[in-house]
């Protein structure tokens, strides 16, 4: 799943840097900052998905 999840990671980065809503503010901070803050948790979620997914693949292969 490494390549698939790399594409997902890149797509989120493209959303942030492609959209780049620098002039939209929430609680006094640019929306760009908040999108990145949400991204921090998304990266950890992707890491969990990868570990669970690849260990399932390994288990299938060893059986």
């Amino acid at each position, binding site marked *: 799943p490494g390549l698939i*999840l790399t594409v997902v990671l890149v797509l989120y*980065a493209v959303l*942030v*840097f492609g959209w780049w809503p620098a002039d939209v503010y929430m609680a006094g901070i*640019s929306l760009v900052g908040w999108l*990145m803050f949400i*991204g921090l948790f998304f990266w950890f979620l992707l*890491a969990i998905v990868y*570990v669970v997914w690849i260990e399932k693949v390994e288990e299938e292969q*060893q059986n």
Partner: protein
Amino acid sequence: MQVTESIIMFIYLIVMTIFGIYFYRRARRSESDYFTAGKSINTFIGAFAIFAAVASSSSLLGAVGSGVALGVPYFFTYAFGVIAIMPFAMFLISGQIRRSGVKTVPEFFKQRFGSSVQIVAAVIVCVGMTFYMVPQLTASGIIGSYVLGLNYTTAVIVLGLGFTLYAALGGMWAITYTDLIQGMIMIVGIVILALVILMDHSGFSALISDALSTDPAFGDITQPWMSYFGLFIAFLWFGIISPSVVMRNFASKSAKIARRTAMWACLIYLTLFVSGFVVTSAGASLGIVDTLDNTDMIFVSVIEHYLPAILGGIMLAGLLAAIMSSADAMLLAISAAIAHDIYKGHINKQASERFVTGLGLVVMIAASIVGILIAIDPPGLIAIMVGWVGGFLLSAFGFPLVLGIWWKRANTQGALVGMVSGAITFVILISSGALPTNAEPIIAAPVSLVLMIIVSLMTTPPPKEKQELVDYYHTHLEDSN
């Protein structure tokens, strides 16, 4: 000189040195012990060790300082790139490169592409890691001179030799276990600091309001788009292109452990940066950024303002831990490149393991002295220097390493051209000053990628056994290397 903080930092240095002495015999048993801790590190210890290796002065001093000076979105860009290091490296190389069974990054290039690529890679490792030590030593000089009352040069020398001693004596064994302690000091320290700040400001919303009322531009995008994007790209790739971090995969018990280690390190880093957001906001609320000679000192000012002396001493030891735990890994990467890859790989293939580990020890001390001499008169701010090295290594190593793992058709000629063209393009761009800060790899890395693909396709395919290596890296059966 601040007595309480100095005593805590002194005790901390003594404890780290004891680790080096304790692991000396075990590290000298074999090259595998000295450079990869016998490939026996488990998930818990490995997660803190890889976190501590990545989390340097840049993650704490640099990120908070630039977040206060340039607006909190700049801090978020740091965090966005740095936390992505772990999953990005995990998806593309962690398990695969652990399965290759090598001890160093240049040795992987030898296994996949041959000796010529190994030598070029070893030279790039030595140059990149030596220059990456400089901002770490600079930061240790800033903190040491501030807390211990020494002048900057003396602080750089004392603290530089401090981490060199335990790293050279105990190799990867000492580095891993000191990193475990240092990672814990770092994370506990910054979480306590964040909680104290939140209590002082009566909650998160009030803290943000205080920061914005002191500095109305705190939430703004203040730099060109390319500066943010370049910073993100340079950090994103760091777990793939920095030998000091990649070597942690070699120390894991297995490919499975290497992946789990990266996942938990990601969570530890997430905790660090969420706490760092609070520290950055507190730094902005103090309104002192214009009164400081060096914005990297904002973090220290926050510690002083909010924490009593004993807690402040622990947090300052945490800052020192961030610096030393990254610099020791860089020393090990240089040591392995010269002693294992160049000396044993090409000069004396019959060298005994004990001689190679002894040479590794001497190389570490020599590399540390070179780094200290450069750091005495550093060429720039911490964050800028880290950006230079990250950009250089990404431009040279990024695509040759990833394509070596994922693309059977990648061959020796392609890897050589990709490595050299990326490095040269980066140096030309940074010398010309044509691009905004940190934006050089946006051009140099794609040059490396395109030329590596074109040259590989235009020349003879690699031999069958080299192509089969790519399949082997991706078989999901537990390795015994």
